[in-house]
């Protein structure tokens, strides 16, 4: 008598026969086929547009060049398109600041309050908004169009072999693509990778894809220091090539780190998987652009307000509280300076990265605030002025290059680290997810600095 669940299971085991699933699935397929034959009329000549497109977009000859070209075009349009609105926003904020200052004076507010609120908080926030918003509002709609068109799975299809030979999961290409938007969101998207080992690889290396908060830094430094010597027309192109180089370097580091980890701490062979290539679909143009722009703008504004504003405040305070002759900020930067110099950076830059832990967006504004004697940012509404601040502090193209490298390779932002902990539930791996990239960032910048200096290039 079957009177317990154990017995039921035992009994059913005795009834089982091998590969009954094949029979079940086949029967289901036959049923659907018969239903579809009755009720669906297919066109007589099947011209499959997606197949034709794939023959180009994933062809042996054109697959990779088209992929690079798409990346290049998206970056180029971002750089080219963001210039004017960025300056316009900066001007607008500048005017706003004048009014605020006038208002503070009219009310007879003490100068420390003006410094705190206007020079610290307001400038920090407005800088982030005017530098971050335009490129993001251009980059992400384009990305969303490609995503809705159906290009991402093709990237995974093209690059699968690279991931496989580095021991990673083929779907890591998709989670990396999410990383361009936000590494924290990308960490959550690694749930599409079933195998824990490969999911961990995807989590640990996602940071090597520059996110939202780092694009503007990369673009800014590339255009100020790498493209400066070129004619105006080609400057955007040079900037694009430099930024693309950084992105490609990030991909190479991802593959290399995955490879090393899958030979050491995360040993194993890549699991099997299937990749569906959905048909290309024409995106709803305006709708997609509108949504991506609004969503990203809100995202950036939210970050600007919850992270950049307090950071601006704190930086101002650190820069204005004196211990002895110097401000706290100066003490910190002096302490960090020797190490920073060894990496081809300086104490201010390291301090900016440390204080910028909560969000990559604020690294640049903190750095600028640090550089200014008053402890507040100047109103930087044109590029020449901006570059002058850097050059006055001893910057060369090497400093810019190494800051870009450090930005690409260093520890993930606070939100991402927290997300990694939530997703892995492991203190060890969370710490490693910050330590591994940081070690790489230090090594790479150190070597770059010494090679460049050794060859006498700067």
């Amino acid at each position, binding site marked *: 008598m*079957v*009177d*317990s*669940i*154990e017995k*039921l*299971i035992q*009994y*059913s*085991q005795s*009834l*089982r026969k091998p590969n*009954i*699933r094949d*029979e*079940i*699935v086949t*029967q*289901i*397929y036959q*049923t*659907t*086929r018969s*239903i*579809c034959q*009755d*009720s*669906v*009329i*297919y*066109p007589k000549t*099947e*011209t499959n*547009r997606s197949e034709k497109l794939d023959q180009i977009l994933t062809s042996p000859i054109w697959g990779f060049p088209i992929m690079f070209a798409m990346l290049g075009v998206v970056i180029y349009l971002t750089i080219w398109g963001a210039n004017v609105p960025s300056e316009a926003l900066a001007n607008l904020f500048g005017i706003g600041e004048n009014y605020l200052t006038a208002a503070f004076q009219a009310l007879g507010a003490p100068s420390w309050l003006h410094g705190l609120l206007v020079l610290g908080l307001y400038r920090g926030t407005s800088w982030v908004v005017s530098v971050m918003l335009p490129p993001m509002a251009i980059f992400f709609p384009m990305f*969303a169009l490609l*995503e*809705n*068109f*159906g290009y*991402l*799975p093709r990237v995974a299809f093209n690059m699968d072999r690279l991931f496989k030979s580095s021991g990673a999961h083929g*779907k890591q290409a*998709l989670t990396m693509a999410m990383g361009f938007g936000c590494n924290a969101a990308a960490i*959550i*998207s690694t*749930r*599409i990778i*079933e195998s824990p080992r490969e999911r961990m690889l995807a989590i640990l290396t996602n940071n090597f894809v520059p996110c939202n908060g780092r694009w503007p830094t990369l673009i800014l430094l590339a255009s100020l220091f790498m493209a400066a010597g070129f004619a105006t027309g080609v400057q955007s192109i040079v900037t694009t090539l430099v930024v693309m180089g950084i992105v490609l370097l990030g991909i190479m580091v991802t593959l290399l780190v995955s490879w090393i980890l899958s030979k050491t701490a995360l040993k194993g062979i890549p699991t099997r998987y299937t990749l*569906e290539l*959905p*048909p*290309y*679909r024409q*995106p*709803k143009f305006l709708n997609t652009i509108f*949504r991506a722009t609004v*969503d990203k703008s809100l995202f950036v504004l939210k970050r600007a307000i919850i992270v950049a504003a307090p950071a601006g405040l704190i930086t101002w305070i650190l820069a204005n509280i004196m211990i002895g002759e110097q401000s706290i900020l100066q003490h910190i930067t002096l302490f960090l300076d020797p190490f920073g110099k060894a990496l081809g950076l300086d104490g201010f830059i390291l301090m900016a990265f440390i204080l910028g832990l909560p969000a990559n967006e604020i690294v640049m504004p903190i750095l600028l605030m640090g550089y200014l004697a008053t402890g507040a940012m100047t109103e930087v509404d044109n590029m020449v002025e901006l570059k002058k601040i850097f050059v006055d502090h001893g910057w060369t193209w090497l400093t810019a290059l190494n800051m870009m490298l450090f930005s690409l390779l260093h520890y993930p932002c606070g939100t991402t680290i927290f997300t990694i902990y939530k997703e892995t539930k492991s203190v060890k791996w969370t710490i490693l997810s910050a330590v591994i990239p940081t070690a790489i960032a230090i090594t790479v910048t150190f070597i770059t600095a010494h090679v460049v200096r050794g060859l006498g290039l700067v």
Partner: protein
Amino acid sequence: MRHYRIALAGNPNTGKSTLFNELTGLRQHTGNWPGKTVLHAEGSFSYQGNSYTLIDLPGTYSLFSNSADEEVARDYIIFEKPDATIVVLDATSLERNMNLALQVLEMTEQVIICINLMDEARKIGIQIDEKKIASRLGVPVIKMAARNGEGIDLLLKTLHQLVTGKISPQPLTIQYSKEIEEKIDELIPHIQNLIGNSYPTRWIALRLLDGDESFVQLLKEKYSKGKLQFNPIRFPSKHAN
């Protein structure tokens, strides 16, 4: 005013989140690649005085628990028992998509089938007779293009009728080989005896025969915790018609 819970199931990339967004006004991530929805998302809307909670399940190729996603979706339908399950199908590859619909029909009869992406299907000249499909499947079938809002009104109306009992589905039962059917018939009385009729007994019998280890394990756990109380009616066990 009553409250209903509705689950959205379907193959990956068929437009479940698009439909979810359309109905709830939320902004789940959508895009043309399989596997975007990884977190359980809920949203709500109301229609004709009733309120609904909609659950956006991850897209799955089947509900046989070959992967964690499939288990999540399956467990939701079996154990959480939504008041209705909307199965979203891709009109351009109905053959593969409908398999999942048939699997859901083995689990619950409170089902609405949405044939989404109709605009894409029309573009390539596919014609679908949804009435015929509905009569074969025994549940409502609606053609739609969620992204353009096409078919949403009809879906809402049908959903209202289904949850208020104005439609009573007569879902198709898939006939397996004589051998399997005999074994199913042998198991069903024992299952009913143990856990009553509150779960789809024919479907459980199939999983037991299939040796779906993870499900059997879960069944055991839930049973020993006393969660599967005898709870008659609601899922009349379905026999061949």
